[in-house]
């Protein structure tokens, strides 16, 4: 798995090193030079490898612990010595969580908010990205600067007045209300990211198609648009993770327990069971986290490529 996944970012692939993942620091010298390496260097390289594995294990441990604890009954969790391998685990914690109707209700709310947010944000960001990277107009540069600056606004300082605004319109505890603030929150970064992708497709391709008789709009949709699929996926993934995992605004806007998103539901589960039953809490956390982690493992490299494409537009 090449984390850089740069092939997905159009326009950046040219400067790519051959053979993906070539190490810049010369740790894997080509061919014969390895022979001349002193023994010390080989040991150091092994040591670094071992260090990498230790760090990886340390970083993954909390996730492992979450899943492992989810399979243990309370009496096995409340022992002086922790159980590190739940070999004879049980599914009872999961059964209890899945018997909670609140879980399904929250799942539906999360799905609705995330779906609506993504749909709106991607379309809006896409047309804006096309505008800034395919047109020359007065105010273009100011717009890009504004997009950059808007990302600096601490949403954590705005939620009170966002709440008031939605309250005034009767949109508190309504999916649409949360969607409004989510779309505004993820749009700037999505525009920034997509702009890098659109700019990465050379305009000459479109112009060539126009010479061949396609209209401008036709050329864009026949030529450029198909090349933007990775960019759209990348920003879609970004938006999905932001909206699906968001907690702060959901906490402020969705005050009705029946309208909780999944993160709020999980926090509720923690607060009712923390003192008594960590197993159930971990089962809930596992159910919330594992699908997202799996999804993330599959699509992460596209998103990283997008982040880099937006940040250092080629």
């Amino acid at each position: 798995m090449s984390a850089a996944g740069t092939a997905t970012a159009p326009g950046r692939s040219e400067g790519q090193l051959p053979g993906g993942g070539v190490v810049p620091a010369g740790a894997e010298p080509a061919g014969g030079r390895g022979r001349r390496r002193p023994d010390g260097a080989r040991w150091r390289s092994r040591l670094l490898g071992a260090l990498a594995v230790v760090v990886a294990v340390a970083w993954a441990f909390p996730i492992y612990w979450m899943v492992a604890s989810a399979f243990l009954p309370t009496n096995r969790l409340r022992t002086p010595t922790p159980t590190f391998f739940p070999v004879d685990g049980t599914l009872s914690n999961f059964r209890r969580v899945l018997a909670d109707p609140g879980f399904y209700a929250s799942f539906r709310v999360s799905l609705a908010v995330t779906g609506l947010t993504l749909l709106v944000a991607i379309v809006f960001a896409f047309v804006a990205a096309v505008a800034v990277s395919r047109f020359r107009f007065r105010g273009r540069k100011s717009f890009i600067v504004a997009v950059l600056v808007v990302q600096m606004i601490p949403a954590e300082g705005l939620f009170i007045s966002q709440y008031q605004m939605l309250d005034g319109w009767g949109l508190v505890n309504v999916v649409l209300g949360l969607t409004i603030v989510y779309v505004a929150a993820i749009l700037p970064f999505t525009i920034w990211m997509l702009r890098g992708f659109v700019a990465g497709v050379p305009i000459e391709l479109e112009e060539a198609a126009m010479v061949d008789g396609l209209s401008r709009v036709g050329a864009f949709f026949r030529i450029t648009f198909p090349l933007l699929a990775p960019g759209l996926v990348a920003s879609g993934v970004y938006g999905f993770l932001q909206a699906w995992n968001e907690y702060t605004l959901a906490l402020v806007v969705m005050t009705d327990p029946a309208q909780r998103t999944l993160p709020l539901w999980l926090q509720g589960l923690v607060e009712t069971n923390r003192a008594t039953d960590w197993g159930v809490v971990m089962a809930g956390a596992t159910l919330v986290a594992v699908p997202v982690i799996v999804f993330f493992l599959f699509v992460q490299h596209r998103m990283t490529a997008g982040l880099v494409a937006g940040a250092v537009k080629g």
Partner: protein
Amino acid sequence: MSVSRTPVRTPAVPGPAAPARRPRRRPWSRWAAYLLLVPAVGAIALGLGYPLVRQFVLSFQEYGLAQQFGRPAEWVGLDNYVALLTDPYVWGVIGRSLLFCAVNAGLTVAIGMSLAVLMARVGRAARITLQVGMLLAWGTPVLATLTVWQWLFDSQYGVINWLLAEPLGMEGMRYHSWLIEPTSFYLVATVIVVWMSVPFVVFTVYAGLLQVPAETMEAAQLDGAGAWQRFWRITVPMIKPVLFVVILLQVIWDLRVFTQIYVLQRAGAPTRDTHLLGTYIYSLAEEFSMAGAMATIMLVLTLVVTAFYIRRMLRAEEL
């Protein structure tokens, strides 16, 4: 890639002009651009702009519970700001937030960069192991993360207390309550925030490292530059744009940290002693205008802290 060749040769552009003319500067195209920006600008103005203006206006008014029930808001000028900025407690919150941000952003970037370099230097198997470890931490939803860490730091059955007491022999730590005391509360928060922020830095910097041409490195090596020298003289300058973005984002994120602090407070910490900017504003929610003033202070603070980076970035970036 085959450019789809439609046999239609009739020029879509009216008039007998040569088809090679670049129709980029036609007058309607400017309006089309503005039209394309309308949805995004509208949505941001609605969800961020309007609340921002409203909050700003509110911060100069007296607006509390009475006004919520219909009393008109009174103009009080800078009173709210004066009240906040003359309160030593508020300065304590600001100072703690800045310190928390500096420590967390610094640690995150330092650890993230080191691990990115490590990732670039080790063999394939070790690299993939490290990547998977990082991705697991990165991909976990923040609330699930916080839930596990509460369990790890649990005072009675938490594995961290066990680790400290049994294999490491610090018997006094067996039933240690991590969240009661502010310093240890911030220690826990820092561990969590750094743990979950490092993967982003690692992958972004690693992607940047891959852009450094191997020839440059080899040339420097032949010229006798040591590994350390090569890193600071060649690698760092070449990945500067990436580093800039990473540091900027990290500073912003760590200054506005809310969820981690809020959830840890709910887990049984003394809230007043552990507030940072975000949670403090949240705690002021009853007094809208005070919260508005405090949020404005936070916004200004963010801009001041990041102004240097934004300026540098705007200069470096050709837009």
